[in-house]
């Protein structure tokens, strides 16, 4: 099997794919990117890694028809409420139209290969598919 790397560090591939947030040890606010201190409470006490629920509800979406070069369109971009943590992601494995994608639909995390680099390593991306 080809070597695999996640598209972003907050996607953990093992033991099963899931998202990992940095949770402020002072107030519990969650962030997916590296933070110097907490945007919510200002604490610099630090962050702990926590797993984010992989099931969620689609709270907002758009169907993008014009995008950056190299991105196949149309695709669905949205915000998923995963047990109180908001996650930005594409909605995948369904037709990108308003008949198949609806506000409030239940979705779950899914992964897919998004490309292979010159050394044969696969980049693994994630999205949410209808649950």
């Amino acid at each position, binding site marked *: 099997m080809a070597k695999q*790397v996640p598209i972003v560090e907050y996607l953990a591939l093992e033991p099963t794919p899931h998202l990992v947030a940095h949770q402020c040890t002072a107030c519990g606010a969650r962030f997916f990117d590296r933070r110097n201190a907490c945007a919510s409470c200002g604490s610099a006490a630090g962050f702990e890694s926590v797993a984010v629920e992989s099931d969620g509800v689609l709270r*907002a*979406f758009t169907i993008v*028809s014009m995008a*950056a070069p190299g991105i196949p369109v*149309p695709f669905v971009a949205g915000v998923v409420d995963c047990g109180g943590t*908001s996650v930005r992601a594409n909605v995948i494995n369904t037709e990108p139209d308003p008949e198949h994608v609806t506000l409030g639909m239940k979705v779950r995390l899914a992964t897919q290969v998004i490309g292979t680099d010159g*050394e044969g390593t696969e980049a693994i991306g994630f999205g949410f598919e209808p649950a």
Partner: protein
Amino acid sequence: MAEDIWILGIHMTKFGKYPDRDTIDIAAEAALGALGDGGVTMADMGILAAGNLMGASAPTGQMLQKQIGQTGIPVFNVSNACATGATALRTAIMAVKSGECDMGLAVGVEKLAGVGLLAGGSRKSDSNTFTPSGRYGAVAAVDGRIGTETMPGVFAQIGMEYGHKYGGTSFELFAKISEKNHAHSTLNPLAAYQKRFTLDEIMNDIMIAYPNTRPMCSANCDGAAAAVVISDSKLKTLSLEQQRRAVKVSASVLTSDPYTESCQVLPDVNTLTRRAATQAYEQAGIGPADLDLVELHDCFATAELVHYDNLMLCEEGGAAAFFESGATWRDGSTPVNVSGGLESKGHPIAATGIANIWEICHHLRGEAGERQIEGAKVGLAHVIGLGSACGVHILEKSAA
């Protein structure tokens, strides 16, 4: 308590395409227009605040002074996303309000015709070897793979999120908002586009990011706007005609986005707008029901809807019903974007936050011609810049 501040002179250029003029040419037209409108000159100005987002690292204010008067006054070159113009104005207002000077000039200018789709800042090319980089440790471009950073897509989600929370929205509803603004634009000779569209034409136009079709997106174009602000005591030394045409700045507010859980993944344009509006109504001592007209930041049709609620023009959650009642058409109870809004008037980014003030002043002075809102006495101008920044100004007709 600091004294009242007034808009003494104000000007906006026609928005459109100026292939033969540079940024400073357009800024100079607006600045000289505002000075002339106020009956003053650069020699009277104690501060210059200049905004130009695309050239944010350039000394725009100093370059402008070399065309209209190098008087040696302090220049503040400001950049605050789509709220850049409002930030320039707010800067001049703060300088006058603080007593450091009694008159100031604010200018916003942009050349944006033909730049195409605008997106966030994280776009990068895929490399030949996957190497984590940046704050997300991304090995490839994430825009389009982990949601979208394109502006039409971001604001589409903002409108859809409102629909999910409160209901009542649909593709057709958002398209009807665009229909209104394009209809309004036919009365504005300075708008980049003055074409009325039918609802069918809007819904069947090119889809950019559902539910926003092309005419539901703000129009990239060139343009500038400028304003001269003056202290109350200085205004009283000027002619009665200048005092009569001066417009009172009853509130001038700028906010940034406070932490909210969801703003980490989708910009929250609601909380900072609601805060700015609340502060502005308190400063002005008036409420939303007192407004005779509103110019709000309809960068996309989906955005206009949420700001009805954020500016408290309707009850919480009631934006769809409020729009459906006809309230925001120019003959409604709270006319919104009678200029045509960003969707048809155009959105030369840094000019927008002063051009919307110009529109309000035009009506309060009774000088808006065919599109005059009769008897207008109070108006509100709002802008949002992603990142985020929100400017709200409330303006009142002179009592003189």
